[in-house]
């Protein structure tokens, strides 16, 4: 459903010259599963997902959503995704109902089916209490619900959640995770980026650990645990990142040094292998 191949993104940076935000990453996310992107802040998660949502263009490489290229067929892609990110805010001067309706209409849904769909969504996400409240007056939790409803209104086959639980209290976060899990049951393809281990552990069918624009390891939770012989995800994560940083420090004298492939790198640190 989502295919990412050799995707790179470079930025021009005054101080450092070319800044590599994504370095030839590749992954695959399938329908009916939640694919997790786990990485610290600044790892490149948001850049990757922005490219998938067609807001950014990759410097090189290819990404396709539901078979459509994110660069050349961007509008086809946007019609098939729901994108929720910390950067996709809710309009201050629109009510919850108006906001979701607006995006439903932009997706080309006729008014009557749209109203029915929205009634169902508002009931499912328990949003009827604040359907006529302006965005400016909503709590963070309410806003996040509106964003989720906005992303789901056209019933897209692919949903992308970028750090969607950040800033939410435990109750709201739990409800959101539940919604995500339900979406998986409906056969949707989900990409979920986070820096919170618990969420990744609980939710994701498959995981990619991303750091400094590179994917260090990828697989199901069990595969990762077995490969690296480390039952605790948090420990595993720290070791991978620590090793990568150490390796990069070693490579630094050679400016074009590419570092080691993730598997070799991980193999070197994995105790008991």
């Amino acid at each position, binding site marked *: 459903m989502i295919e990412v191949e050799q995707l790179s993104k470079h930025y021009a940076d005054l101080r450092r010259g070319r800044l590599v935000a994504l370095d030839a990453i590749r992954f695959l996310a399938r329908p009916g599963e939640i694919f997790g992107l786990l990485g610290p802040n600044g790892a490149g998660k948001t850049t990757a997902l922005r490219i998938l949502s067609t807001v950014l263009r990759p410097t090189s490489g290819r990404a396709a959503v539901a078979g459509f290229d994110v660069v050349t*067929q*961007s*509008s086809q892609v946007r019609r098939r995704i729901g994108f929720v990110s910390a950067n996709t*805010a809710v309009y201050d001067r629109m009510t919850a109902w108006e906001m979701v309706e607006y995006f439903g209409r932009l997706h080309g849904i006729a008014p009557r089916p749209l109203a029915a769909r929205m009634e169902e969504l508002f009931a499912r996400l328990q949003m009827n209490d604040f359907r006529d409240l302006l965005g400016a007056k909503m709590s963070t939790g309410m806003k996040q619900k509106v*964003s989720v409803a906005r992303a789901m209104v056209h019933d897209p086959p692919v949903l992308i959640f970028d750090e969607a639980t950040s800033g939410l209290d435990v109750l709201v976060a739990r409800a959101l995770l539940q919604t995500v899990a339900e979406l998986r049951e409906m056969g949707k393809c989900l990409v979920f980026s986070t820096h919170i281990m618990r969420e990744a552990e609980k939710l994701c069918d498959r995981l990619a650990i991303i750091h400094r624009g590179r994917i260090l390891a990828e697989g199901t939770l069990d595969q990762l645990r077995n490969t690296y012989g480390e039952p605790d995800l948090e420990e595993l994560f720290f070791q991978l990142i620590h090793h990568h940083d150490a390796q990069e420090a070693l490579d630094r004298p050679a400016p074009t040094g590419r570092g080691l492939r993730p598997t070799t790198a991980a193999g070197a640190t994995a105790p008991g292998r």
Partner: protein
Amino acid sequence: MNPGNVKLILAREVRDQLRDRRTLFMIAVLPILLYPLLGMSFLQIAQFMQERPTTVLVVGAPELDDLPPLFGNERFDPALFAAAEGSELLHLSFEPAGGDGDGGQAAAKARARRAVRTREYDAALVFPADFAERLGRFREEVRRRAPPPAEGEAIAGAAEETGAAADSPAVPSPEIVYSTASERSGLTAHRLGEVLRRWTEKVGEANLSAGGFPAAAARPFVVQQADVAEEAGRQGLVVWAKILPILLLLWALTGAFYPAVDLCAGEKERGTLETLLSSPAERSEIVVGKLLTIMLFSMATAALNLLSMGVTGWMVFPHLPNLGPPPLLAVAWLSLSLLPVAALFSALCLALAAFARSSKEGQYYLMPLLLVTMPLVILPMTPSVELNAGNAIIPVTGVVLLLRSLLEADYVTAFTHAPLVIAVTLGGCVLAVRWAVDQFNQESVLFRESERLDVGLWLRHLVRDRGPTPTVAAAAACGVAILVVRFFMSFALPPPENAAQTVNLVLVTQFVVILTPALLFTVMLTSDRLETLLLKPPRSVEGTAAVLLGTGAAALLAIALHPSVNLLQWVVLWLYPLSEEAAASLQSLLVGDVPLWQLFVAIALVTPICEELAFRGFILSGFRHMGYKWRAIILSAIFFGAAHAILQQSLIAALVGVVIGYLAVQTGNLLPCIAFHVVHNGLAILSTRLSSEAVAEWPLLEALYVPLADGEGHVFRLPVVVVSMLLSAAILYGFSRLRWHMTEEERLQRAIARGLAAP
């Protein structure tokens, strides 16, 4: 573009703006309140501003017998004022004259001057000590010499004698002392002057009647003035024609600016832009939806302001003479012109606001925008500036002048130039909209992060991270640098006086203005200089052959195109005749005493090489990174045209620049461009050197040319032009079949265009 989405976005944005109290206040409440308040304060101030009395020191007031009275009751005589209460406005203080003799007189004058300088009095009126006496004596003399009215000869004699007396004024002059440093003083002096003028007239009349002449002899006739403006309201029309367009433009700009900032920068700031960008709406739909919203508010602001001003004016202006309310027709023209003006300003504001990172940054751009727009709005205020072909192509100025012509009911001028003004305005709109769409397509603009401004770091970044060929910004900067250097050079160098100096000037200009910036930019900002300047030698024998073939074809194209260009030149000069100054400078260059070979070296060899390196080399290579080959060609051609000094030359150069730009893209090599340019310029020199005698003498030339009816020069025969066009089209078709090299951006845009075309 999906009109449904545009409508949705428009509806949402309008509702959003209407829910914003600040916008509503700026657009609706402010104008409704502002003008009545202004009108009220105007009336209030008018009461304060009523003519206030000023003080005058009168030194040596003359005591006059049986002459028309000047003073009475410590005031000037009320009969000396247009309105009797005028005498109340001059408060007089009297001082005796300084006594007889020059010394006393000088002391009195000095005293008066000091009094005015220290602002003790607003002005002073100093009479010479013997003024009354001498005036009396003069009068006596006139009376004594007066002949009996019946004898004509005697009258003539008397006139001669009095005429002789008038040569050396018999009466010393009174002096008004005032200071232009004070407005009150100036006003007082003006009032005093009027009083004395009337009094002098009266004294003259009295003298005449004393001499037995009728008083009317001094003023045998009165000049009457007739105003042909048809109605009373028309008198105010000139004032309205100047004020209304400017107010309209200013309000249209203000009305566009604030919503634009809120719709773009504000949305970026609030984080909702990314929400919208990840929706199915295309960027162009978003831009057009937002643009229409901004236009709506711009027009509403202008209309509401004019309406509110009109209503207030309707109530206030009856108090002002000569200025009726603006006529209805004027209002209709204003409303009609509001649409293109609002479109232009809205698109400009949108593009600027899209660039801003936050509302605050957006607000900063208002001032530069005003600074750029204001001169364009103010220029038409200058009395001598009128609507003509030259002014019509200046973006905002053209609209203001057109409006003025319409308001002044000068329909012939207005409708002659209206198409040009409308074309320029629409062209401006299209460009501004394209710019705005571009802004929305640029990640660096949409996701700009604040970075500390560090010029040194930035310059180092430019050089360190330079690509093989220049960026779009570098190309634009080079173009602008050339224009700026050219502007300053035109002041620094003296205008040439003869052809030899002109040749020198051309060489210096080419090396300093065109070549140096282009080479400097190339060396500093690109890593593959040969590639940038399209000078990469071909890698294979076939490649070399292709370049040589292309060069030959380009030279042939220049020959084939020559008659068509000539015709074009003729049309341009017919539309926009050369100013005498420009014609003279061109003439001095071409018909001077310079050997032909020098002219060829300067104009047909050095100029083409320098210009091609700059415009088709650096600048076009940079613009190619925009991703659209035609846009790059046209932009580089516009810079090429602008680098020419004379407007008529610029127009033709820009068109020729498009052809050369096309050659550059299709062949990927500068040689064909230089070849075309060399032949083109060479033929231009030859054709100006072609005399009518030569045409008549040589049969071949006679077959090509036909002499003009007025005997001044000759043009190509029509069949020659037709053949020229066909041949050029054929050669250009040949170039279009070449496999040209695409830049990465052009490949990407083509892929996107194909992706969009796919279902």
